[in-house]
């Protein structure tokens, strides 16, 4: 859809501002993008400092790893201390870690002496698949439910839907998961697997049935929230003057909903979906634990338990990067979809 079409469909208060010259607009976009990317990198750098300091401030990692055996195993103490460069200063340790991270080598796991990346990579893929699968189900579902609600607004179906959504939004993810397991796997029906039993060297989705409950848990956890936000913004749009005008012009209600209302309601939707996706990247920890799903969440819990500092650092950085990237993409999309903001940048 071109600018012109959008402008005719969606009357814009800033419409009278002359469209910028092409060259100038592109340069403005480049500047805007560069600034946002710079900010994102700055955020990640700050996160790296925080992650490093936080893991360094946890006390002597060697003692934490060896626990009770610290006193009786001086050989292993020396070995771990050498691996952690415990004698170097904090600053030089930070820069050697950051250097490794930037060159794609986040170090070696303390727990089993294997490269961190080798252990993380398959978990990252597994978690990404789970989150994306959940998003692919959740986004259309949330929008459809919101549109149904708006269609019946302030009538009984809307009230019922909103009550159910509100109740579900109040449930923590593990309660949803435990209830789903009891319902479909262990107690009432025995139709779905309760946990993911990994086949050796395979993927969790090799057995598609095992993906159902974790995905459903994430969907039911996040969808109510997204759906309620989308409904609220749809209602706001529907009551606006330009939708009123479109109706008065005699455009069929379906078209009004789809083209005029939904498109404008999508922007707050994108923001909330992005927030939820970023949230899922961290929140998947509990769902993965509950379903024994081999993803980054489970690995993070395990690494924290083992005091495996390089693993914790690498995983924290991955989760932080997901936050930053998802938010960046969401901002970009919102601006592209909001004519007012778009013209504000390019002028």
């Amino acid at each position, binding site marked *: 859809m071109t600018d012109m079409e959008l402008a005719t469909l969606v009357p814009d208060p800033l419409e009278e501002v002359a469209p910028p010259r092409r060259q100038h607009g592109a340069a403005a976009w480049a500047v805007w993008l560069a600034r946002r990317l710079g900010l994102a990198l700055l955020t990640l750098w700050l996160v790296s400092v925080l992650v490093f300091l936080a893991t360094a401030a946890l006390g002597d990692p060697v003692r934490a790893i060896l626990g*009770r055996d610290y006193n009786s195993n001086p050989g292993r103490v020396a070995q771990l201390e050498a691996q952690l460069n415990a004698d170097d200063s904090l600053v030089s340790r930070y820069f050697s870690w950051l250097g490794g991270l930037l060159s794609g080598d986040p170090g070696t796991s303390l727990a*089993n002496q294997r490269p961190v990346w080798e252990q993380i990579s398959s978990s990252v893929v597994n978690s990404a698949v789970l989150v994306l699968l959940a998003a692919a189900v959740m986004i259309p579902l949330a929008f459809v439910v919101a549109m149904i609600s708006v269609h019946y607004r302030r009538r009984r179906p809307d009230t019922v839907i909103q009550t159910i959504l509100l109740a579900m939004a109040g449930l923590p993810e*593990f309660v949803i998961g435990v209830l789903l397991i009891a319902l479909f796997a262990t107690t009432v029906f*025995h139709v779905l697997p*309760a946990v993911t039993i*990994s086949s050796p060297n395979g993927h969790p989705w090799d057995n598609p049935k095992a993906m159902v409950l974790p995905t459903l848990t994430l969907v039911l956890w996040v969808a109510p929230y997204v759906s309620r936000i989308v409904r609220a913004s749809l209602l706001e749009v529907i009551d606006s003057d330009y939708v009123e005008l479109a109706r008065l012009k005699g455009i069929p209600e379906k078209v009004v909903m789809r083209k005029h209302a939904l498109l404008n309601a999508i922007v707050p939707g994108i923001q909330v979906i992005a927030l939820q996706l970023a949230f899922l990247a961290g929140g998947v920890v509990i769902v993965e634990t509950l379903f024994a799903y081999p993803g980054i969440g489970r690995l993070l819990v395990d*690494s924290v338990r*083992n005091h495996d500092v390089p693993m914790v650092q690498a995983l924290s950085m991955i989760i932080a990067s997901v936050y930053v990237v998802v938010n960046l993409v969401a901002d970009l999309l919102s601006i592209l979809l909001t004519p007012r903001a778009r013209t504000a940048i390019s002028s």
Partner: protein
Amino acid sequence: MNQPRNGMPGFSRRQLLKYSGIGVAAVAGSGFLAACGGDDGGGGSGGGPQKSGGTLIHGATGGGSKDTIDPHAPVTNPDIARVSNLFEPLLFWNSNYELEPALAESVESSPDGKTWTVTMRQGVTFHNGKTVTAEDAWFSLQRVADPKAPLSGGGQLSQILDFESTKVVDETTLQLVLKVPYAILDGLLAEYTVGIIPTDFDVANPVGTGAFAYKSFDPGQTSTFTRYADYWGDAAFVDELQIQDFADDSAKVNALQAGQIQTVDNLPYNLIDTIKGAGGGALVSETGAWIPFTMRVDVAPFSDVKVRQAMRLIVDRQQMIDQTLSGYGSLGNDLYAPFDPAYASDLPQREQDIDQAKSLLQQAGQEGLQVELFTGDDIGSVAPAAANLLVEQAKAAGVDVKVTKKTPFYDDNYLSYPFAQDFWNTRNYIPQAVVGTFPPDQGGTYNETHWDNEEHRNLVNQAAQELDEAKRADLLHQAQEIEYNEGGLIIWGFRKQVDGYGANVQGLEPSKYLPLGSYKFNKVSV
């Protein structure tokens, strides 16, 4: 005001709010849903002959990226399950915690206890078809007991083996020479950490002699094994064994209920009925595992033996078992190693005696005694619960116990807390006495109580060199009497091991040595 709640001793609000707590509680609560879901039936593990074939999936508690498949350095529960099925030591601890021949037909000592002759069982083959020889046995012992870097199973062996003089006599005979006489060497050779491997062993493709052969291993997730048809003992019923890690208790139990896995180790006590309701069962075994209170005998107030005796009389042992172990425990008498043939079971069972405790405290001039007790979650969940219960029990004797929960407990101060707790697994008396009651430079790397009693030590050392069982038992009895009267440990009970199995699982028998019948999965059919 809240209504007073009963039945949840030592369960703080914070613990209740912790995720795991809610998860488990919710799983237990799903028993409520079972009532709505109708009866699912299920065969249980009743009679009938055992079926061959199928896959047994074992849900192992814990594990993670720390997992290893090294035969001589198992750390986590899944590691122990793996090594127990892949590899075998020269001798076995059987399910009654007695020695039994395994890859060795016999292990016999010379009269002075310094030379031990190992005769290998004939016709045993490794998974790659190679015959097991004395050469392999010696290679394995050298690997586990490497004096420069002993692996977890070889600490003690590395100190007593004379590597120069030991020799392989022929294909089936190994002559082990020790630096000092050691009467219980055979016990060391029976640990699951001393499995026999071929001289060309490669940890990337581990070959052993067990009833299952290696197929795959993915740390923190799963490992698979196939039935070894040429096994020298009873070949397995199932065709394939899979050991799956579970970081979370409720996931493990859900999987068992859903029929995705057939066995689990360490079933939480509160879920026993849930599993039974789903047609499975709980396997309860006696163990010699204990969670003592440790009193340092070299600092006040516990340097006064009367205070130690009073503290031992303050503890209501049965209540400790009932409340912290849900009743799954057996009484302790301030002595460890209950399965040792020399265990002093004739010493009278110590019971709570508040009057006597008060009078001892009075004699010691310690009425109204105040002590700080250190505990922590990393000792195990039983420890903080027992510490809180002790506070209540001590009040009756006018002793004010203040609990300090440390995170982590095993830090710089471990082994210097005046009053604390610890955990120990099943062992016999001599090895336990050495690590737990000797000074650090004589092998007592975990001497929590700083016990330093020369008379006791001499008795233990003498017993370690005494080949005559009756004489050894007598020496150990004297040693135990000293600890019983003056020691710094309060041993209130021994934990029972509870494991779970699903419907149609047959062949599991309790074992005092390791969970799930010592993980002998060759005896299990599904």
